[in-house]
């Protein structure tokens, strides 16, 4: 990465002619680039990121053959591991959609994990206290989770709109508050009465997302896919989506033509928080069957990464979520077979974001070498 970053650095200070013996990089702003070429540049960035990832993995002691086996061979060789990827993909897609909705109106929601925690807390509350008739329990948990997530983003959203307080910091700080509240519940009133371990009691079968009937896939994935389509409709077809795009593209113009900017921003933020809350529900009721103390770890950045790589497109997010799902599952097996800490997955995601973000430079600019006049 570093070498790439440096490749552009001489450009912004065109050297005076006295050093014309070597020549210099010249920068041009591209006026137009074909979608195909744009895609190729981004894929090139992705490829550089993956190569950098391979180098890091090899430095950590994984052979090239090992990388191939863990990331490709073992993932696609058995139905079991394919299903593991699909299971992991569901919550990833949900948090990715949460980030998409927020980023569409330039609301930097970095509090996805906190909202997931509150989503799961609200859902678990419904489960523990057996609220509502049994046939309605699961839908109630889903709605409760969405409300929990919305509640947790409400304060940062209002603070941004009313006082102009930076939502990046406020949403992030609330992650820590939510996490400590979760620990309070799990070590205190909600400690599992059966095992006395710090996680909630196990959900009853009717409080868990039912199995689809293939491997251990649950309804979590269809739910996430449905959500992606709904969000796509909302952002690309509906009037609300039109407003949101307007606010993103030109807030002043949007205000001038009477688009309710504050309402659109608030609604998008609440929707984003609500979706994150559903993400918490998907992990707790769809995968783990209870609320654990680390179920949310790493989802904020994965959500940002998915929205970023998918160019804020809910349908492309499906593909990216599957890709990140592969990373997660491969990361778990690296942990088991190579004792590589789970943080490796985070590192890989960061490398990929950096590589793709850097490649955008070559979409916006044309760089060429100008020989010196001697």
């Amino acid at each position: 990465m570093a070498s790439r970053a440096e490749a552009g650095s001489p450009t912004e200070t065109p050297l005076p002619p006295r050093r014309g013996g070597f020549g210099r990089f010249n920068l041009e702003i591209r006026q137009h680039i074909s979608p195909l070429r744009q895609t190729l540049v981004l894929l090139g960035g992705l490829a550089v990121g993956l190569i950098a990832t391979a180098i890091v993995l090899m430095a950590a002691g994984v052979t090239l053959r090992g990388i191939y086996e863990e990331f490709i061979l073992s993932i696609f060789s058995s139905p079991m591991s394919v299903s593991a990827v699909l299971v992991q993909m569901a919550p990833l897609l949900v948090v990715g959609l949460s980030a998409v909705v927020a980023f569409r109106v330039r609301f930097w929601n970095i509090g996805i994990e906190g909202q997931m925690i509150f989503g799961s807390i609200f859902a678990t509350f419904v489960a523990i206290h057996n609220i509502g008739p049994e046939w309605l329990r699961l839908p109630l948990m889903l709605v409760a989770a969405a409300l929990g997530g919305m509640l947790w983003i409400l304060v940062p959203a209002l603070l941004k709109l009313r006082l102009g307080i930076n939502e990046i910091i406020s949403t992030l700080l609330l992650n820590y508050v939510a996490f400590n509240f979760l620990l309070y519940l799990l070590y205190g009133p909600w400690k599992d009465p059966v095992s006395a371990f710090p996680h909630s009691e196990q959900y009853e079968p009717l409080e868990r997302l039912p199995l689809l009937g293939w491997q251990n896939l649950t309804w979590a994935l269809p739910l996430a896919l449905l959500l992606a389509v709904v969000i796509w409709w909302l952002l690309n077809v509906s009037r609300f989506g039109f407003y949101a795009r307007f606010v993103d593209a030109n807030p002043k113009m949007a205000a001038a033509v009477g688009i309710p900017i504050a309402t659109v921003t608030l609604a998008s933020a609440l929707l984003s928080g609500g979706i994150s809350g559903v993400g918490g529900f998907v992990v707790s009721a769809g995968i783990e069957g209870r609320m654990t103390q680390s179920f949310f770890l790493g989802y904020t950045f994965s959500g940002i990464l998915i929205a970023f790589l998918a160019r804020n497109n809910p349908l492309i997010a499906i593909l990216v979520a599957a890709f990140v799902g592969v990373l997660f599952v491969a990361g778990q097996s690296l942990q088991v077979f190579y004792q590589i800490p789970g943080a490796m997955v985070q590192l890989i995601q960061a490398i990929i974001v950096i590589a793709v973000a850097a490649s955008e430079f070559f979409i916006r600019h044309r760089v060429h070498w100008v020989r010196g006049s001697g």
Partner: protein
Amino acid sequence: MDFLVNWISNIPGFAVPFALAALGLILTEKSGVLSLGAEGFMLMGAMAGVGAVIVTGEPLLALIVAALAAAVVSLIFAGLVVALRVNQVIAGLAMVFLCQGLTSLIAAQEGWSSVAIVGLATLPIPGLADIPIVGRILFQQDIVVYLMVPIFFAVQWFLTRTERGLKLRAVGENPEAADSAGVNVSLYRTGAIAGGAALVGLAGGYLSVAVAKIWVDGMAGGRGWIAIALVIFARWHPWRALFGAILFGGIEALIPRVAAVGIQVPQYFMLMTPYIATLLVMIWAALYGNTRLDEPGALGRPHVREERR
């Protein structure tokens, strides 16, 4: 009384990481670069510091290593936002997660995780340290605490009384004008990023080498983010940032002491207080005084000469 002296004498140790990190952020942000990677640079400094103590056994050297490690990693950030004009929010967030992953990976590979180390020793000042109360609060600290005021003075002097500081601020206020005047915008921004990151890394190194005396994954615990909020609260003034850091150090130093005197608050609620206090401080700053006026004019805006209008 004993509770009070005990508490106050512990504040400097807790305040130093906030103060150094906020100072580093001010240096970077004065050049117009929004540095959201502070949490990551802090982790990098903390991990490198502990590693250096384990390898060399020299806590003072370790603090320098911590600063250098963070500065080196920040060059990736500089390459992204200065040379490649990547969105500074995305680049900053990516740096945080890059450093989180990198530090826990390196620490695990080297076996530095959860190893207790010999930390930075306190340095009682002969004579002065024996003064009752005041001696314990002010003169039984470690060397970094004594150096805080000189460091703040130096940075303040650099920013306001030197030509380079003036140019750096010009780059942050109006890079186009600075560019026209012949200031190398990229160079100043890169320098401000690396210099600021060194201070943030030092903050992290202090946290692990002098306070915790151990490395644990993610041990910065949001302090980098709190420092970012502190800078807004301080409206980019170093001395106000020092005041804010002491305030937050005071809150943090109070947490372990509340339970000790028998006040029954569940510990997890106590652990929330720094984050809630940060939010309250940001609300206070937004309500009283317009922070926008003190914000560097070009904060977060990349400078591309070719895109000049």
